[in-house]
């Protein structure tokens, strides 16, 4: 199948500190890839580079063969196709749930009000948040906010959805409801790139797992390979720390 994304020799440094040191991998349609690794290993920075929220220092990010790090690229148009779900939800505080899911469709995709509303309701229904369309973000729990944020991203009908630690800011009892939604999306064939600390989820839901350490991809493979028989010493050490707790 065709590559949606191809990351080639991606490097990112803040000052003299190299956060990403030569990252390369590809994402094909239907891939569900979990990216695991210790805090500070560069997982989130990589995701933010892919969505151009951070400028890569060097390297290429090819989207259907087009390098979107080039100066002349229409970044907003690219972002429309590559959705992102944040650790802190980032729902628009000045809008209710329904408006959050409509504003991008109306302003960016220029859809009619009826169409945008219908699509918003469809995806809110999918994440189980349709009854809350009149609520403001501040009135929702973390898990509810994250489900709305997922619906907002889906309403743009992206080709691929990036998740930046979607459950890290949630209370333990709310993690499940968000992971359930994500699992459903994975089963429906949505292409997903997920930075996560939920090892059980990464193991069960993803097709591929990428383990990052110190700004490089230390190990990459199927969940069975990475979790079952890790080749790298660093992977083994990282995973063993998780099993203890």
């Amino acid at each position, binding site marked *: 199948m065709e590559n949606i994304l191809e990351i080639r020799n991606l490097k990112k440094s803040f000052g003299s500190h190299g956060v990403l040191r030569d990252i390369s991998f590809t994402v094909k349609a239907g891939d569900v890839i979990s990216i695991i690794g210790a805090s500070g290993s560069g997982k989130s920075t990589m995701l933010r580079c892919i969505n151009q929220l951070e400028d890569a220092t060097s390297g290429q990010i090819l989207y259907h063969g087009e390098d979107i790090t080039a*100066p002349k690229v229409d970044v907003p148009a690219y972002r429309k196709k590559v959705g*992102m779900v944040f650790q802190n939800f980032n729902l628009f505080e000045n809008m209710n749930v329904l408006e959050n899911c409509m504003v991008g469709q109306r302003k960016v995709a220029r859809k009619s009000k009826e169409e945008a509303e219908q699509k918003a309701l469809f995806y809110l229904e999918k994440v189980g948040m*349709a009854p809350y369309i*009149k609520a403001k973000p501040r009135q929702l729990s973390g898990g509810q906010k994250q489900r709305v944020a997922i619906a907002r991203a889906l309403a743009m009908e992206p080709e691929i959805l990036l998740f930046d630690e979607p459950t890290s800011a949630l209370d333990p009892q709310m993690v499940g409801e968000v992971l359930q939604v994500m699992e459903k999306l994975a089963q429906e064939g949505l292409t997903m790139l997920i930075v996560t600390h939920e090892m059980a989820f990464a193991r069960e839901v993803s097709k591929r797992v990428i383990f990052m350490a110190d700004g490089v991809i230390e190990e990459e493979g199927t969940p069975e390979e990475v979790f079952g028989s890790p080749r790298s010493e660093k992977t083994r050490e990282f995973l063993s720390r998780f099993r203890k707790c």
Partner: protein
Amino acid sequence: MISDMNFFERILYILERYGASYLKGAGTTLLIAIVSTAVGCIIGFAAGVVQTIPVDQKRDSFFKRILLRILRLILDIYVEVFRGTPMIVQAVFIYYGLSQMCNIQLGMWQAAFLVVSVNTGAYMAESVRGGIISVDPGQMEGAKAIGMNHVQAMTCVILPQAFRNILPQIGNNLIINIKDTSVLSVISIVDLFFVHKSVAGALYTYFESATIVMLIYLTMTVVTSRLLRLLEVKLDGSDNYEMTDTMDIGNQLGKKRS
């Protein structure tokens, strides 16, 4: 005969003879304060937006970066000059200065609106910039992530929140303007303070007239601050929300499809 009256009788006498003048003066004061605060807000928002435009070294053209830098320099000078000099001097400077130096004959009304608006704008520019910066950066990222450009993100997401954040500041400025328009009497604007000076001078009743004027100013500012508080509550919306029946949603969807 006015010297035979006691304090309250004198106040009643003044009100009887000059009540209409006081009210007209108060109306002028309010008109200048409200219009100029509104115009000042527009200036402030424009300036604040320009000050917070991000510069992308890679994607923005050289021309755009230079233009932005010049604009910001002009805005900085504007803010420093009008925030750093008294409005009473600005009024004289603009009213007489423009006619002498540039041969522009401003009416005193135009001069009054101009001075107060531009002065308010200088204060608001910094408030708006602060209001924009104080919005959680995640809001901008959320907007970008669904494909919004900077203008869309500002108008739909950031500015409405910044506006809510600085509403108390806007109210502050309005109240300051209601009081500070009194300095416009130097360019012969017949506002509330001008009426006071005329009446007090004509009847030699400084204390009585000042009492009346104090009360009118206080009424205007208290009412204004209460109204603004109401607006804040209204903007924040209800703390409750209604659950929407999912069956209804299904029906709505059905209706729209058919």
